[in-house]
């Protein structure tokens, strides 16, 4: 992915590590989350998906792969 492509789109300068020294990035996630509703919302989106029941097809896929692999090993 070309980083240059996105720089103009947000109007912020080049991505250089030295440029980032003055950025007020949080030192811990918890500190940021406690005061930032967007961070809290993003976490909520993540947790909501993680909390969904895993569809059965995922386990079927793992079973299928495992069985195929076992069969292949037996055939050797």
């Amino acid at each position, binding site marked *: 992915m070309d980083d240059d492509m996105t720089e103009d789109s947000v109007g912020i300068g080049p991505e250089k590590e030295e440029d980032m020294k003055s950025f007020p990035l949080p030192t811990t996630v918890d500190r940021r989350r406690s005061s930032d509703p967007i961070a809290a919302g993003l976490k909520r*989106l993540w947790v909501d998906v993680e909390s969904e029941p895993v569809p059965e097809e*995922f386990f079927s896929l*793992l079973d299928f792969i495992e069985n195929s692999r076992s069969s292949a090993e037996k055939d050797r």
Partner: protein
Amino acid sequence: MTEKTPSSPAVQFRKDLVAIIPSLRAFARGLCGNRDLADDLAQEALTKAWAAQDSFKPGTNFRAWMFRILRNHFYTTATVQKRYVAYDPEIAERVLTVQPNQGGEIVLEDLRRGLQTLPVEQREALILVEAGLQWDEIADVMGVPLGTVKSRITRARTALKRYMDGPPDAPLPKKQGASISPVGVE
């Protein structure tokens, strides 16, 4: 043939894969913004991980390894098949001119839409923070320097905040010939 005991590497590997499925789905959902495509992506990542399990070094970061497989596959698929909606600055700008939120609170659906207006490399950086990865782990997953990760996260947060805030209020039109003198002081 390798015997599969309850503690064998193969059994443990499967347990690790099963345990990480919810996080893989969350990461994939954030990347492509579509439940079905995201689940396809997560399943393809599982398949690739299984095939590449010998390349995983026990004791290293399994979570980061899996996320790297998924995001690499996402970029490959997005490039080759154009299955996912590419970032379009013009569309993003149009979306940014729509007030996403009538109240002051964060509405998750607005946030979800706002997330999808970001360039994907910014979006994935932001999502990986929510996945609980440290900065250096995110850099490892994305294959970029730490400074680039921080830059992308900062840009993403700025753009997302702009989206959630909506367009700035238009200034009130000045009345022609309106006096600037205080009342009664003429």
